[in-house]
Structure formats: C-alpha cells, structure tokens
C-alpha cells in the first residue's frame, strides 16, 4: 500500500500535476507576506526573566539603543568644523525617531572659579559644553577650556587628541520604523556632511539591522545559484546523466518556493540563518534525488531490455523498482533529516527556532515534492538509455575513482586492522573532546559579520578612539519602606555607586561607566575651585539636593529616577566573547550585594547582556537538541532494527563526526554561535541517512550469504558510489556557504562540510567494522516479507511461533534460489545446513545397487538436511531442485552466531529442530521395529529414510 502511495505520481500523472500546481500556487501566494527580521529581539529568548525589567529600565533611564555618529577630522575643534558639526547635530535632532541627541552641544558643563572655601563669592557657569557652534575665537577658546575641564568627555564623547568625537542619538522606535528606515534616514543626514570631515559614519542597532538585511539578500542571491551549480556539476560528474542533474534542480526550486511561501503564511520571518535555506534545500534535497536516480538506473539495468519493450513501460518498471527499493530509506531519511532541523526548535533563541521551523518545513516540502514529482518525471520522461551507468549499487569491480579509493582504503585498513581503526578513532574522538572542551561562545550580532566588513571596522574605530558601542545599566533600587525618603540624596548611598564603578575599573573589562556619583563629584569639584581632591560625592544630603538644582532633569535622567529611589550606572564596553562578558557580569553581580547591603536591590540589565546570556543558553539548547534528536533516532533505529543494540550501533557512526566537529571548532577557535550551534544536530540528521542505507544494504546481502565479512565488503563496495557522491555533494553544498558574508553562516557551512566528510569516513570505515559484528533485521523487512502462510503454518520448524517470529526467523536465515537441476546437497560432502522449502520441489537421489535412484521427493513446508545441522556428518544423498526452487537455509554456524543477536528466535528454532529430530528418531525406531518384524522389508526401510 505504501509503495502504491509512493507510485501515485507515476500512476496518476495528471492528478499529481494538478495537485502540485495547486499546492505551488497556494504556497507561492504566501510569498507576498514574507517578512524579514534582522532585529535583535529574536536574539533574546522570549521568556528571558529580564525582559520586563529591561523595558521598565529603558522607559525610566532611556534606551540603550543608541546610534553613535563618529566624526573625525584633524581640524575638528575649529570654528569652521564646529559650525558644520552644529548643523549636523541639528539635522540629527530633526529626525523624527531621534529622542535625544547627546554631544558637546547638549552635555552640561559646570565650571567654577574663585569658588574656594571660606565663604567668599565664587563664580559658577552652568551650561552646555558648547552652547551652539562658537562664532569667535574667544568663544572657541572658552568652549575648548570647558571640554578640557569636563571629566567625562575625554574617551567617552571626544577622543583624547580632540580629533574625533561621538554624537549619540537615542532612537525612539515604537515599531513605526524598521532598522532599515532609521539607517536610511541617518545616512541621508550624514551624507550631507561627509565632505566636511575626514571621517563620518554611524553605528548602532539600526545600521547592524540594515546591513544584516543587505547581506541576507546578497547571500540569498549568491548562495542558492552557487549551490545549484555545484549540485549540477557533481551529479553530472558522478552520474553522467543530464536528466539526473535537472530533476533535483527542479525539485529544489519548487521546494524553495514552497518553503518561503509557507513561511509567509505562517508568519515565520526570514532571518540571517534563512539566507542558507535555499542552499540547504538544494544540497540536502539533492541527496535523495541522487539515490532515486541511481535506483532508477539500476532498475533499467535489471529489467528486460529487449528491443521490443516500449520505453514507457521500461520507465514505469524502473520507476516502480526504484520506489520499491527506496521507499523505506526515503521515508526514514526524510524523517531523520527533518528531525535534525526540528530538534533546534527547542532552542530558546527566536532566530534559531524560526530557522529550525523553516528548515523543517523545507525538508518536508522537499520530501513531498521529491516523492511525488520524481516518480512522475521518471515515468514520463526518464532516460531509458542510461542503463549501465551505475551511479550507485554497481558491482564491486565497477567501483573506481574516488569511491574506489575509499573501498581500497577500507580493505587495506578497516578490514585488515579493525581493532586499530576503532582504537585510533576512539583516541581521535577523545582528543577532539579535549580540544573542544573550552569552546568560546558568542551571540554578538557584530560577530555575524566578517571582520573585514566596514561595519566591524567602524565599530573597532570607535572602540579604539572612544569607548565601546555596547551599553548596559546597573540599577540600584533602594528600599524606601525601611530607608530614607529619596534615598539617592543620601551621600552613603551615592558612594555605593562609586564603589561599584571602582570595582568595575579593577575588573578592567569595561570601557567606561557614568553615574550620579560622577555628576555630583564633578559639581562638587567645581564648587571647590576645581580642586581635584574635591572630586567626590558631596558630604551632605542638602548639598547634594542643592547641587542637583544646577542640572536640568535631562542631564541626570540617565542616572537617577525622578523620585531619587533608583540610581543607574551606565556602562559602555565592546566585549564580544559571551563567556568573558558573562564572567565579568557574574563577578559583578556577586560583589554588588556586598557593596549595597540588603537595603538595596541591584539589577544588571541591557539588551546586549540578554543577547549575551542567551548565547550561554546555546550550550544548554544544543545539548537539549542533541539529546532529543539522539533519543528519537535511537528509538526509531531500535524499532527499525527491532533491537536496542541496533539503535546504539546506528548512532555510533553519527556521533563520531559530531565529536570531531567540536574538536575542529576548538582547534580553529571557532565560537559556538547561533550558526555553529546547529551543525551537530543537522549533521546527525543527515549522517544517519548514510548509516541507514548501509545497514539496509548489509541486511539484504546477509540474507543471501552466510559470509558476513564478504557481505560487509560487498556493502561498502555497493554503497561507496552513492555515499561518496552524496557526501561530497553535501560537503560542497555546505562549503558554498563559505562565500557568505555572514561569519556564522560561513562557519556553519565549513563545519557542516567537514562533518559530512567525517561522516563519510565514519560510515565507510567505522560502520562496516561495527556492522560485521552485528546482525540486524529491519522491521519493514519483517512486515513486508511475502511468505506463503500455508507453507509456513504447516512447517514443524515454526511450530509454536507467532507470524512475527516466523518472519524474523526467515529473515535471519538465508534465502536461496535454485534453478531446476541445481544441486543443493551433494553426497559425501560435509554440511552443517538444513533447508526449508518455500516453493518448488526437490528430489533426493541415492545410489542403490550402484544405480542412481530417486528415493524421495519433497515440497513446500518440508525440511531436509537437519542431521547435518546438529552434527557435522557426510551427506549420504544428493538433493537436487526438481523445478525452480526457493529455500530457506539455516546454517548451524550462522545460527550459533545469531544466537547472541536473536536469542529468543534462535532458541525457539533449536527447540523445534530438536523436536523434529526427536520425531524423526521415533520414526526411525518404529521403522527399525518394523524391520525386525519384517526382515524382508529391510531394503524398503532405507528407501523411506534416505536423509543421511
């Protein structure tokens, strides 16, 4: 029934075409709804505990989403340049999303002179550092003096050499603007002044968003065609069939259309990881197409090629043969690959979750399209002259080229020194685990870009001359119920801010920090004639309050709440390594309570911290995804092979590449990031496909030979071509991602490519070694086995066994076919096998008085050769096929080996064989009694019991 379903495309072509067309139209209409999301929101887990607090904090103390406009010029602080700078400032202020523009024109300067102690009158100037661009040299001189005097400008807003400065634009975005809109409007203003300064650029979330979007589309335009080219070339090289190259190309295109359309309908936005979706679809989708084409060509080989056979019939037969052989592997690989992507849906990062969902949809859509369209295409226009190309499943002697090299390598190493290979692999895995134990983790959006990108360079320029572009806040909330009214007027409380800042300075990781304590210390110094010793928090609550009257609320809004119950330390940094930043923050969080005491609560919040904390969760999320996927694959393969041992064995070759991948990351210093965090699970999902194909082939071969070693070798030989082809295509396809301008996608591609190659080695070297040690029977084989129930039911060999057990017993036996006249048992030879006739008849011949005589004839359900099975003995008669014959051969040595794999079935068989032998012994005794009673029938006795 399943096969019939899979043949729907070939059988009901018009209906299938209509269905595909309708579904394509339905999915494609969702394309207009497709959104692009490169915002930072998807980098923070939705359930992050600090999200709500963060929203409260930015409402109260201002947003940490600040755009830094960097202006540099050798003559920056001159009348001419400052005039342009003021115009630029005004232009930025006019932007509708600009909530606040902070620079030398808006930073308050308090300047005291003659303000020493003693009660004499002094002079205080309170105003902006520059109250507009100076018009005269004296105005400029005074402004420069204010800049020099201001303790928080140098290194923060103005470089030490005065040749560069920053304008901070706090953006207010209620969703009206996209990052692209903001970036565009910023650039429009900046472009008017670019010629006025040596350097002028802006960085901030908006630019990062805009460039992420730009690179996303650039990648989409570049990577998908490149992948398609690689796909076509590799298929042409390995399969030498143009049609074989066109089929996956077409299914991939359709799958991409469906995927993006469905994403539109389901409101799954395109994010930067989605940029690799088309490539993934092309690459992963093509593997199944390749297997199908190989099986189709094999089908052409196997069927009747007489000149009179019409091409359409040949196509249909080959297509049916293809689906018959590939139905289960196709379904399984589809499920496991989809699961590989779906496992990432447990990730807390919206970006990864959205990508995982989109990729799962892509894989399933591609699977559906492949299973319906490919049979249709092959049945209608499949090549009929492709026989003999043997892209896969060729005979051993045909394996040449690169696949042949793998086969020879396996023969010379894995087959000859299996222990050494296993030991080497184990050592390599241990070394990889060691190398990968200290992986750095990052989720910094800037790290998504290549280091040579202008954006990254610009950020580093700002970091070099000023301070980092990342902000976070430390919020101290005083307990107003038990403490004083307006607690941050109390000097002791304000000093706690200073203490925290001092600790951060000792940590050495952060660029700058500012707080209310700094502002008050500044004023205090100026009211004391600029005495640096007075740069400290005012001594009394009253003095603090009176100093604060010199500030406009805007000046201190970022540092203290209006009711003076909460204070905020604004911290700037440029730390990209999540582990390092988290370590600093953890250390800080541990120390702050010691400084503040129990009467204050401290919160450390910032969007980049939440993003960073989410990076740490990548590890847990990856572990969760891996456990989930490995668990599910273990269950599936255990069921598939009807044995937990099968589940474990199938997983080993999949886990080896993942371990090696972590080692590679450790050695090359590649961070765990949203891209690389997905490689492991996706790789397992793909690598298991090769393992399943190997096991399926091995099982099939084992049913026809009792020599497991040769079955293993034959498996490697037969699977080498498709596995090398698909693995190389996958590796090349993933390798294409190296061309991405996103570092995380390039790293994902490189690692996935390496992992695919490692999986190929594992499957062609390790899997065969493990395989030779086990004997597995597939559930589908058991269920799909066609057996003559009437024959088996009446066979005493299977007495007391359920149909399932009978099927399994049949599958661990050896199925042999003979033509009429073939010799099954030859008199005088040694044998340890017994036979159960499934169909056809055999004749038993003995020499009676020197003459060859047929002494018996047996049919379906009967067994023969059972004495040889229990005791090594010379055969006493010849047994020949009287007609086309199908028998199950049970070899003693093989069953003895299988006892450890299938103890219950084999013991049951042995029990039945014992009973059969007992019955035969009883019959012999009866016959002997008859012989004694009727000595004249002695010769007849021999005739009745010719078997050994």
């Amino acid at each position, binding site marked *: 029934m399943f096969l019939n379903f899979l043949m729907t495309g070939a059988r009901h072509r018009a209906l299938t075409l209509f269905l595909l067309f309708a579904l394509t139209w339905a999915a494609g209409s969702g394309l207009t709804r497709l959104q692009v999301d490169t915002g930072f929101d998807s980098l923070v887990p939705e359930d992050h505990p600090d999200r709500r607090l963060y929203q409260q904090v930015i409402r109260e103390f201002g947003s940490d989403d600040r755009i830094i406009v960097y202006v540099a010029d050798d003559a920056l602080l001159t009348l001419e340049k400052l005039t342009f700078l003021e115009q630029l400032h005004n232009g930025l202020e006019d932007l509708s999303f600009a909530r606040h523009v902070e620079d030398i024109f808006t930073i308050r300067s308090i300047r005291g002179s003659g303000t020493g102690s003693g009660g004499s009158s*002094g002079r205080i*100037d309170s*105003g902006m550092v520059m109250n507009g661009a100076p018009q005269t040299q004296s105005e400029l001189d005074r402004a420069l003096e*204010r800049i020099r005097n201001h303790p928080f400008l140098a290194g923060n807003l103005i470089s030490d050499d005065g040749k560069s400065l920053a304008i901070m634009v706090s953006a207010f975005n209620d969703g009206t603007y996209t990052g692209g809109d903001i970036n565009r409007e910023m650039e429009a203003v900046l472009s008017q002044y670019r010629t006025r300064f040596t350097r002028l650029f802006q960085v901030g979330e908006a630019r990062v968003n805009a460039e992420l979007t730009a690179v996303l589309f650039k990648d989409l335009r570049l990577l998908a065609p490149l992948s398609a080219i690689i796909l076509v070339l590799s298929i042409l090289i390995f399969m030498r069939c143009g049609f074989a190259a066109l089929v996956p190309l077409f299914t991939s295109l359709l799958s991409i259309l469906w995927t993006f359309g469905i994403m539109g309908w389901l409101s799954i936005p395109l994010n930067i990881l989605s940029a690799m979706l088309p490539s993934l679809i092309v690459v992963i989708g093509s593997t199944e197409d390749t297997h199908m084409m190989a099986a189709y060509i094999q089908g052409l080989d196997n069927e009747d090629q007489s000149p009179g056979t019409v091409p359409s019939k040949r196509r249909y037969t080959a297509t049916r043969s293809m689906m018959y052989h590939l139905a289960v592997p196709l379904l399984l690989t589809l499920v496991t690959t989809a699961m590989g992507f779906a496992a990432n849906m447990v990730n807390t990062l919206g970006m990864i979750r959205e990508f995982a969902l989109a990729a799962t949809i892509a894989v399933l859509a591609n699977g559906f399209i492949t299973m319906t369209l490919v049979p249709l295409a092959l049945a209608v226009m499949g090549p009929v002259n492709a026989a003999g190309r043997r892209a896969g499943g060729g005979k051993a002697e045909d394996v040449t080229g690169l696949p042949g090299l793998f086969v020879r390598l396996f023969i010379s190493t894995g087959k000859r020194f299996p222990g050494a290979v296993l030991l080497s692999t184990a050592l390599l895995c241990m070394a990889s685990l060691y190398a990968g134990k200290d992986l750095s983790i990052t989720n910094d959006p800037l790290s998504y870009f290549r280091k040579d990108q202008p954006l990254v360079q610009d950020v580093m320029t700002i970091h070099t001359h000023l301070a980092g572009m990342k902000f976070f806040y430390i919020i101290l909330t005083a307990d107003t119920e038990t403490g004083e009214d307006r607690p941050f007027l109390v000097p002791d409380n304000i000093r706690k801010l200073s203490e925290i800042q001092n600790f951060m300075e000792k940590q050495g990781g952060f660029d700058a920090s500012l707080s209310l304590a700094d502002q008050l210390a500044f004023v205090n110094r100026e009211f004391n004639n600029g005495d640096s010793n007075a740069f400290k928090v005012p001594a009394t609550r009253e003095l603090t309050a009176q100093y604060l009257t010199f500030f406009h609320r*805007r000046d201190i809004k970022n540092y203290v709440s*209006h009711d003076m119950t909460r204070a905020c330390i604004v911290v700037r940094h440029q730390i990209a390594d999540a582990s390092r930043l988290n370590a600093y923050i953890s250390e800080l969080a541990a120390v702050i309570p010691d400084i503040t005491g129990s009467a204050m609560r401290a919160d450390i919040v910032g969007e980049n911290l939440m993003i960073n904390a989410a990076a740490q969760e990548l590890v847990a999320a990856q572990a969760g995804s891996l456990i989930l996927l490995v668990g599910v694959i273990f269950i599936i393969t255990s069921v598939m092979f009807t044995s937990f041992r099968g589940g474990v064995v199938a997983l080993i070759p999949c886990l080896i590449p993942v371990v090696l991948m972590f080692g590679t990351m450790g050695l090359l210093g590649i961070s765990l990031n949203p891209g690389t965090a997905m490689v492991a699970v996706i790789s397992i999902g793909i690598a298991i496909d090769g393992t399943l194909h190997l096991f399926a082939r091995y099982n099939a071969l084992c049913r026809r030979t009792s020599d497991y070693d040769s079955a293993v070798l034959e498996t490697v030989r037969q699977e080498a071509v498709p596995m090398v082809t698909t693995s190389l295509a996958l590796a090349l396809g993933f390798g294409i991602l190296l061309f991405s301008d996103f570092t995380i996608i390039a790293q994902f591609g490189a690692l996935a490519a390496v992992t695919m190659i490692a999986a190929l080695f594992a499957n062609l070297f390790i899997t065969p070694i493990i395989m030779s040690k086990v004997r597995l029977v597939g559930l589908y084989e058991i269920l799909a086995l066609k057996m003559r129930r009437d024959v088996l039911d009446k066979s005493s060999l299977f007495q007391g066994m359920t149909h399932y057990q009978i099927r399994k017993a049949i599958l661990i036996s050896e199925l042999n076919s003979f033509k009429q006249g073939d010799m099954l048992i030859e008199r005088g030879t040694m044998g340890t096998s017994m036979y159960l006739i499934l169909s056809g008849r055999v004749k038993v011949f003995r020499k009676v008085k020197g003459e060859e005589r047929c002494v018996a004839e047996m049919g379906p359900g009967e067994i023969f050769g059972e004495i040889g099975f229990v005791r090594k003995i010379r055969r006493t008669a010849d047994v020949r096929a009287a007609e086309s014959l199908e028998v199950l051969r049970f070899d003693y040595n093989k069953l003895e080996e299988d006892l450890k794999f299938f103890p219950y079935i084999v013991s049951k068989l042995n029990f039945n064989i014992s009973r059969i032998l007992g019955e035969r012994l009883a019959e012999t005794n009866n016959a002997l009694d008859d012989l004694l009673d009727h000595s004249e029938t002695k010769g007849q006795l021999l005739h009745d019991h010719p078997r050994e």
Partner: protein
Amino acid sequence: MIRLACILLFLCIPSVSWAEDTQLSDLSGRDIVTEAVHRHAGFPYVYEEQTMVLRDDAGNKNVRKLRQYFRIEPDRTVRILMAFDYPREVRGLSLSFVLRPDGKIDTRFYMPALDRVMISGADGDGHFLGTDFTIADFIEPLGHTIYKRQPDQTMEKVDYFVVDAYANHPAGGRTSDKPGGVHRRRHFVRKDILFIVRTDYFDGAGRLIRQFSRHEIRKTDRDLWLANMLFMENLQLDHATLIKVDRRILSEELVRPEVFILPEGDSGKEAVVQDPESGSADHALENDTQETNTDTTKG
C-alpha cells in the same frame, strides 16, 4: 517670576503714544509689543508665593515651593529674589537677579549647604534651577530687537496680533539672539487687552524649540493684567515647567531693599529672606498692600 514676566518688559520701554483712535491695522509690530509692555508694566513692589512644577519626558513631576520678591528701584534697577522653601533639602536656596538700567543682569545665588554666595557666570545657558526658563525669557529688549508684524490670528475665538521678534545684533554676530539657540520669537498678543499670552521660540533652522504661554490672566485693581500661571514647554527635550502663583501681595513693605541682600558666608544655614508672615510683613500689609486672589480669575 510671573510678575517678572510682565514687568521686566518695562525696562526697555521707549516713550510711546497710543492714541485711542489708533487704527489697529496701522500698528507696526514694534508699536504692538511696546504698548503691550507699557500697559502691563505696573506696580513696582510685588511679593509672590509660587509653586513650581517640573515635568519630564516620562510625565514625572517634581514640585518646588518658593517665594519671590520683586522691586523696582527709583533708578529703574530691578531686583528679584527667589527663595526656595520646598523640598526641605533646598530650603534657603536663593536666587537673586539684579537688572540694571543699562541692561546688564547680575545673577547670584546662595547655597545654604555651603553657606556661600555664588555668581552665575555669563557662559551659562541662562536656564536656572533645572527649569525650562531663562531669565532672558522675561526680558523684552525693545532697543535691540527688530519686530515684524505678521498676519493676525484668531484662536479659540480670541483675536491676536502676531509679531515676530529678531535680535538686532551687530554684523557678524550670532544668528541666535539668546542662549539655547533662539533665532526668532513669535509673540501672540491678545487684541482686547494688549497682553502677550504666548511666545514661541524658534531656532536658526526655523524649528519651534520652546513655547512660553501665560494662563489665568486677570485684571487687578490697579488696572493691570497679570497671569497667575506660566507654562514653558521645551519641545526639544519634551520637558516643561509650570509656575503657579499661590499668593500675591503688592506691597513695598514686603520687598524692602534689605530683603535682597544675600549673606556673604557668615549668616548660617537659614533662609536668606524673611517670611512674609513675620511682623514686618504684617506691617506692610497694613500700610500699602494689595493681596490678589490668584485662584479665581482667568484671563
């Protein structure tokens, strides 16, 4: 301060004749502003108790209570003293303005926590005590301003003269005539009472940056129109300051010259000026005082 808003205008008033039969349409911008200043620059001795409310961009409000003393000397020197009473931490903080006939302004403040008088330098932006007002907002420098009458407007059924005021600086001077980058002011003068009820401040790029409006305008017994509420909205910062007069007394006794003397570092931490509820204030009220009701009248 509210008194200030009207009376400081008096400083620069040239003699102007406003004939009853003057055709309104014939008036120039200067005529209108000059007459508005002239009409409402009245009684020279005023004591006010005020509530100042500062509102930030998040809608949070901070409240201050203060007393204001106003006096015009015979030589036309104007003295203003603002003394804060609330919050308690700033009690005694005093701000003194002396506007001399030559137009110069001397600003000082007394910091009780330091027991020190400080001079406010000319390099500041003029905003005082965290408000959105500058002292310059209360001065109409008629002699240094170019007025251009604009088309009259009617808003909410009230007719207004509209006059734009530009600083008349020497050539090569700043385009802005005031700290904060103000390039142009636009006065809205009520036609019926010749009272400036609103002033918009524009920067050099023509952007409206602040808006100063006067509310609860009422007529006193002395035929003056006074506003009991002043509201300055800083549109650039989304910040606003409201000053409301809780009590007003027109009395020379309450604003005697010694009230305006700030201590020079040896007077202790108490408020500089006497509370009007003291004996001297009572005396003033008996002799020559007029207490205005600030709660009921609207302009």
